[in-house]
């Protein structure tokens, strides 16, 4: 009989072997994902610091004689965020599942996986170390290091400490990787544009491999309020999470354990819930059997009287900021229609979430997008660019909404942007590219779009009438001179002056415009 060998592998090793599930499936996609992960870390760092982000990205090609489709690129990302304390830097970029984000609140990444994966991917494709420079305001620490894949830890090659006379704060990371830029260029720039759209307080500068400069300037210095970390809601906990909580708790009995570790659980709720779960109030958490734990977790789904999950852990962009971002990146003016709606918090499976939706239409929307419905999708302020038609936003915007109700015809140009923020985005895959159609989430998205689209009908008919008035004015401009010319010739005189008549009709159009402004918006629900 052959011997079966069992061995445990480190998380770093696991992701090395399964890198496609983290979005590093091929050279072009890996280029995109690496940029995305690094930029998102930077954005988070700036928000924690509550400063308007200034992000610098440079991708440069390393010349070599290889005659392959892929090239070696140097990627550099700099931010003005909170900076990393020196002692955390090696783990933050050298260890999978190390991160500051284990607390339950909205953040772009969740487990600190992304940044490290970029480093890991760079290392395995180029064999070059990563260089990280960071300061929290004091000395500047610079690390050159690589990842010990088998042991899931950082391997520091060089650590230098520099003085920081200017008081710089932030992080800069530079790594090399084998990638394919040309195939992903369009998406990458689109990603940056959409990032600028939902982070209107960020200044993003990008220098591409060909030396081209892309600048996405901020439209405001305002930041949305920071989310507050909260305890988990009992609904959203699974067996594994529950086991972990038990392993670290200091609570002596189950009643205090429930009250200490979950949000919205007080004296009464703890007692009633434990009764339902058939667990003694005095039971010691660490003594629970696996059957007990399973019963408790199942009971959380049956118990109907928990408070709604606390939404203070969420940070929606807000109607004003989202409007600013979309207007600036789509080049909208006051002549276009845009409406942003931030819905009230809602929950699915014990996770709080908030949906924000924007609907825009008008001349400038058409210039950029042509006719039809264009969707932009964001999850926790991250643009989602792939698999559009599989996602819930596409479904809501194209299937659930009857656009005819809003006077939108098939040749009208409409932009629908949806932002979902949650402590747990219902992604369909680890690659985090599109959101699943969770019924509660889908319903909220649909309602948000409907609400934002309400004014479209009025806008359309107003625009239609204005266009008609302008056409009317054109008719006078066209025919009156002819009437004057030929009546003059007929009377054997000069051509009479029609300026006074044209003035009469053109004042008419201003009155029409004014009148149209006064027309109340028509509210229509499908």
């Amino acid at each position: 009989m052959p011997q079966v060998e069992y061995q445990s592998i480190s998380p770093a090793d696991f992701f090395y072997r399964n890198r496609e599930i983290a979005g590093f499936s091929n050279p072009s996609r890996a280029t995109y994902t690496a940029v995305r992960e690094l930029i998102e870390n930077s954005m988070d760092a700036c928000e924690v610091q509550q400063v308007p982000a200034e992000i610098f990205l440079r991708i440069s090609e390393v010349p070599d004689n290889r005659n392959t489709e892929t090239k070696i690129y140097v990627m550099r990302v700099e931010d003005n965020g909170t900076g990393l304390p020196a002692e955390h830097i090696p783990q933050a970029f050298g260890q999978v599942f190390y991160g500051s984000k284990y607390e339950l609140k909205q953040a772009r990444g969740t487990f600190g996986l992304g940044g490290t994966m970029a480093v890991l991917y760079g290392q395995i494709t180029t064999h070059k170390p990563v260089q990280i420079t960071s300061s929290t305001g004091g000395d500047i620490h610079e690390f050159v290091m690589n990842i010990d894949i088998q042991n899931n830890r950082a391997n520091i090659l060089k650590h230098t400490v520099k003085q920081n006379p200017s008081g710089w704060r932030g992080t800069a990371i530079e790594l090399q990787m084998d990638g394919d830029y040309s195939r992903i260029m369009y998406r990458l720039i689109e990603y940056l544009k959409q990032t600028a759209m939902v982070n209107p307080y960020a200044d993003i500068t990008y220098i591409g491999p060909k030396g081209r400069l892309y600048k996405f300037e901020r439209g405001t210095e305002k930041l949305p309020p920071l989310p507050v970390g909260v305890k988990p809601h009992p609904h959203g906990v699974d067996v594994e999470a529950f086991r972990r909580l038990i392993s670290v708790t200091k609570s002596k009995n189950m009643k205090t354990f429930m009250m200490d570790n979950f949000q919205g659980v007080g004296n009464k709720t703890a007692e009633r819930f434990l009764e339902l779960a058939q667990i003694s109030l005095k039971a010691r958490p660490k003594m629970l059997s696996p059957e007990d734990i399973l019963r408790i977790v199942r009971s959380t789904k049956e118990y109907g009287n928990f408070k709604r999950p606390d939404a203070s852990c969420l940070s929606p962009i807000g109607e004003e900021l989202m409007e600013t971002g979309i207007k600036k990146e789509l080049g909208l003016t006051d002549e276009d229609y845009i409406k942003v709606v931030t819905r009230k918090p809602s929950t699915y499976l014990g996770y709080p979430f908030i949906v924000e939706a924007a609907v825009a239409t008008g001349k400038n929307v058409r210039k950029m997008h042509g006719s039809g419905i264009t969707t932009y999708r964001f999850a926790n302020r991250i643009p989602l660019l792939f698999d559009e038609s599989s996602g819930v936003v596409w479904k809501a915007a194209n299937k659930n909404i009857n656009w005819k109700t809003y006077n939108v015809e098939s040749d009208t140009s409409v932009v629908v942007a949806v932002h979902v923020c949650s402590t747990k985005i219902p992604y369909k895959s680890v690659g985090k590219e599109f959101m699943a159609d969770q019924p509660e989430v889908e319903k909220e998205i649909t309602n948000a779009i409907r609400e934002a689209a309400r004014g479209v009908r009025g806008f359309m008919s107003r625009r239609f009438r204005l266009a008609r008035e302008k056409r009317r004015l054109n008719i006078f401009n066209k025919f009156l001179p002819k009437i004057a010319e030929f009546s003059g010739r007929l009377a054997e005189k000069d051509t009479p002056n029609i300026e006074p008549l044209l003035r009469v009709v053109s004042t008419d159009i201003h009155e029409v415009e004014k009148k149209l402004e006064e027309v109340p918006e028509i509210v229509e629900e499908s």
Partner: protein
Amino acid sequence: MEKSLTQLGNLIYEQINNQEFPWIHMQSRSTDNILYDTNLRQYVLGPRMIRRHSRNIRHIRPFTQLIWTAWFAKELVTQKKTSTLRETYYSARGQRDIEYTDQQESDNIITDLEVALNRAREDFNIFPAERSAIFGDLTIEYTVPGYEGRRTNLTDHPDGIMIGPAITSSEFIETSADKVLVIEKGAMFNRLVEEKAHEKFNALLIQTAGQSPRSTRAIINRLYTDYNLPIYIFTDADPWGLHIAMVIISGSANAAHLRGLATPDAKWIGVLGSDILNYKLPTEPLTEYDHKRLFELKADPRYKDQFWQDELDILLKIEQKAELEAFSKYGLTYIVDEYLPAKLES
């Protein structure tokens, strides 16, 4: 003519100078304003007036076209040139912002100008395409440029002479004829010329080539009013032939704004429904369309006389129709030798 066109120009000119959107008053040509006048025995326009106003977005284009057409007409009149409906349409095509989408639209504006000026378009030298012809002993004197004072006798050309602007504007000098024979078709007209019907019956021959053009109807009217020549109309025995005769007699709704086109005393002498039976003419059955048309005619005020009602009824009863050529059954000259003399006698 020139004066009324200039007047129209002055009217518009003054309105614009007074900072007023120009407009004109004219009789409405809509169907509910076309009435049958039993005294005149023709269609006339009723009392309803419309205002064509350049302030109105729907009026300004036809208004502009009307002014342009007036100018075009004045050019024709002052330069003593003539034109056709079709030419007028194409001249407008050369004018940006005036152009018509089809000739129908252009023809319609010309009719508007007739109504506005209360003059026929022939007066401002716009003629329909020539297709109708006249033959017989009538001496005319041309007035068209280059031919002024020249005379011709209408027997000079055996194919007949086209009724165009030159004939229409000519002076009638003298004729020995004592009647006018109007025929619907060119082929029969040629037969009559060949058989010297004009001599035999002492008649002027006119062929209308289907529904007679207005200039032809004007000439028929002139021959009747100025020379007291009785008019005899000879058409197919079917609703279309009847109506060709009727339009000569009582005018058309389209020309309700004009006088001097209808000749109420003209006589339709055949082919009558009774002739079909009496002469045992070869026939064809009525089509569904013929049927429908016969009933329309029965309801038309111009057909309210018993004579016409009876004629329509005969066709409906026998369910047959016959053409002029049907007489050829008895030989090519039968119609001149037998049928017409009998008809003219009665």
